[in-house]
C-alpha cells in the first residue's frame, strides 16, 4: 500500500509556491536563501516521486546532483553576502538596488 503519485506532486507544488512567496517577499537574504532551498527541495521531492513511479534511478541521481549544487551555491552566496556586508554595512535586498535603471 503506497501513497499515490498525486499526493507528492501536490505537496511539491505547495512547497515550491511557499518558496517563491518567501523569495519575493522577504528582505533578509538568509531567509531568501532558505526559501530557495525550499524550492529546490520541492523539486527534489517531485524528482524522487517520479523516479519511483517510473521505476527509474535517474530521479534519485539527479536529486543528489541538485543537493551538491545547492550546497555549493549556498557557500558562494554566503561569501558574496559577507563581502556586501563588509562594504555596505547592510544586507537588506531592497536597499541594495544598484542595478536600478
Amino acid at each position, binding site marked *: 500500500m503506497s501513497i499515490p503519485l498525486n499526493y507528492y506532486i501536490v505537496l511539491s507544488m505547495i512547497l515550491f509556491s511557499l518558496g517563491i512567496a518567501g523569495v519575493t517577499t522577504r528582505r533578509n537574504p538568509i531567509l531568501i536563501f532558505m526559501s530557495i532551498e525550499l524550492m529546490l527541495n520541492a523539486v527534489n521531492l517531485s524528482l524522487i516521486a517520479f523516479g519511483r513511479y517510473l521505476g527509474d534511478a535517474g530521479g534519485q541521481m539527479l536529486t543528489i546532483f541538485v543537493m551538491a549544487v545547492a550546497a555549493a551555491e549556498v557557500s558562494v552566496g554566503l561569501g558574496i553576502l559577507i563581502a556586501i556586508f563588509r562594504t555596505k554595512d547592510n544586507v537588506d535586498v531592497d536597499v541594495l*538596488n544598484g542595478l536600478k535603471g
Partner: protein
Amino acid sequence: MSTILWLVPLIPLIGAIINGTIGSKLGERLSSGIAIISVIAAFIAAIAVVSGVSSSPGHFVESNAVAWMSVPGTPLSIPFSFHVDPLNGGMLLVITGVGALIHIYSASYMHGDKGYSRYFAYLNLFVFFMAVLVMAGNLPLLFVGWEGVGLASYLLIGFWQEKWSATQAAKKAFIVNRIGDVALLIAMFMLYREFKTLNLYGETGILTQLTASSAFHVETGVATAIALLLFGGAAGKSAQLPLFVWLPDAMEGPTPVSALIHAATMVTAGIYLVCRFHLLFEMSPLAMQVVAWTGGLTALVAACAGVAQWDIKKVLAYSTVSQLGLMFVACGCGAFTAAMFHVTTHAFFKALLFLGAGAVIHALHGEQDMRKMGGLASKIKSTHLLVLIGTIAIAGIPPLAGFWSKDEILLAAFDHNRPVYGLAAATSALTAFYMWRMYMLTFQGSSRVDEHTVHHLHHPDTRIVLPLTILGILSVVAGFLNAPAVGLHFYSDWLAPVIPSPEHSHNSGLVMGISVVVALVASAISVAKYKSYKVGTGDKTSPVFAFFASALRFDDLYAAIVVKPLTAAAAWSNLSVERNGARGLLRIGHSSVDFVGKSVRRWQSGIVGDYILSMAICLIVIVSVVLIAGTRGGN
C-alpha cells in the same frame, strides 16, 4: 628591354613609399638621398629605354601586358602596359632628367623644413605618376597617371598646410583640373564607342586605326567632338583659357615644385595628349582652329598679366601659361614637332628660371616681391649669370634655346593662321619685355633690400648651383637639337616615326628676322625703362595695370558666376535640407527610441524580489502556453 620599362615608374614609387612611411626617422641626408637616387636611377633606365627605341626596327619599345580590367562579352579589355616611342621617350627623358636635377636642388632648398621627408615622398610620387602618364599604353592607364599627377600637384601646392592661402590654392588647382578631366573622360567614352578599344597602340589600337584611316572611317563631326573634348582635358591640365586660373595660385607651393610640376613637366601633359592624338586633330579643321585660337589668346592674356606682376614667382607663372599657349598655337597650326620641341626647351629654361628665382628667394630669406630686390647681380654672382642665360633664352634672342623653338612655332602660325600669328608675335614681344623687367628689377639698379638681409644673404651651396648650371648649359645648347635654319634637325628626325617632319617653308627667313627684331626691341625698351627703377615710379596703380595684374579679372568673373551661386546654393541647402529636413526626420527617429527606452526602464527596479516575481509569472505563462498547445497538438 620590357623589364627596364617597368623600372622607370617603379623606382620612384619605391622611393615614395620609403620616404612616405619611415622617412621621418631617416634624417635629412638619407631621406633626400633615397629620393635623389631613385630619380637618377629612373633617368638611367629611361636612357636605356630610349636607346632601345632608337635601335628597334619599329621605333618603339613595349612592355608585356599584365591583365587589369576587362568586361566579359565585350571588346573592352584594359591591360597594364607601357609603350615608349620617340614622342613620349623624349618626354620621359625630360621628366626624369629635369626631375633628378630638381630633386638635388630641393635637398638644399628644403633644408630644415619639418616636412622634409614628406616633401620628397610627394616629389617621388609625382615622378612615378608622370612616368605612368606618358608611358601608358592605353587611355585608362593614362588617366590614372593624369589624375595621379593632379593629386601630387595638389599635395605639393598645399605642402605648407598651415598656410591658409596654400590650402586654398591646392583646392582651386584640384577643382579646376576636375573640369578638364570630365571632358577627357567623355572623350574616352566616345573613343571607345568609335574604335571599340581603349588601347592606343598595337594592331587594333586607336592610333593604328587612325593611321589606316582609309580602312576606318570616323565622321568629321565625331572627330571634332572627340578632339575638342580631349583639348578640354588638355586645357585644364595645361592651364589654358578659360581654365588657366589655377596655375598662378599654384605658386603657393615650394619653388622647386613650381619648377618641376608647374613649369617643366605636368603642365605639358596637355600638349603631349594633343600631340599623341595629332591624327585625330588633323581630321578636324574646326578643332585645329579652336586649339590655335585658344592657345594664342591664352598666350596673350597671360603675357599681359605677366607684365603687371610684382611677385617674382607670379611673373614666371604667367610666363608659363603664356608659353603653354604658344605650344598650343603650334599644335593648332599642325606643327606638332615644334610644340614638342618647345615643351623640351621650355622645360630647360623655365626650370632654370624658377630654380634661379628660388635661389634669389632663398638668398633673401623668403622675399618674393621684386620691389624689395634690386642690385643683386654683384651679390649672388652665379645665380645672376644663370638667370641671365634663362632670360635671354626665353626672350627669344638667338642663338639660345628659346629662340629656335619659338621661331618654329611662329613660322607655323605665319604659314597656317595669320591672325593667330599676330597674337603669338605680340606675345613674344611681351615675353621679352616682362622677362627683362623681372631681370632688371631683381638684379640691376639700386638695391632695395633692407640692410639686415643684405648682410645676411643666404649664399647658394653646390646642390643649388649644380642643377642650375646644368640647366643653364641645356638652355644654351638645346636649341641646336632642332634648328632648321642652320641645317640641324635631330629632333624632327627623331620624332619622324610618330609625327611627320614639317615641310620646308619659304617664309623662314622673314619670320626669323621679325622675331629677332621684335625680341631685341622689346628687350631694349624693358631694359631702358627699368634700368633705374625706384619704388613709386613708372607703372603703379593705373586701372589698366591693375586690370592686367589680375589677369583680366578672370578670378573675379568666376567668383561671380560660379563660386557665389554655389556658395548661396550650399547655404540654402544647409538651412532647408539639412537643418529643417534631414535633421527633423532624424529627430523623429531618435525621440521615439528615447520614449520607448524611458517607459521600459521602470521595469528595472534593482530589487531582486521584483525580478524573481516577473520570472515566476513569465514561467507560469510560458508553461501554460506550452501545456495548452501540447494538449491541442495531441488531439
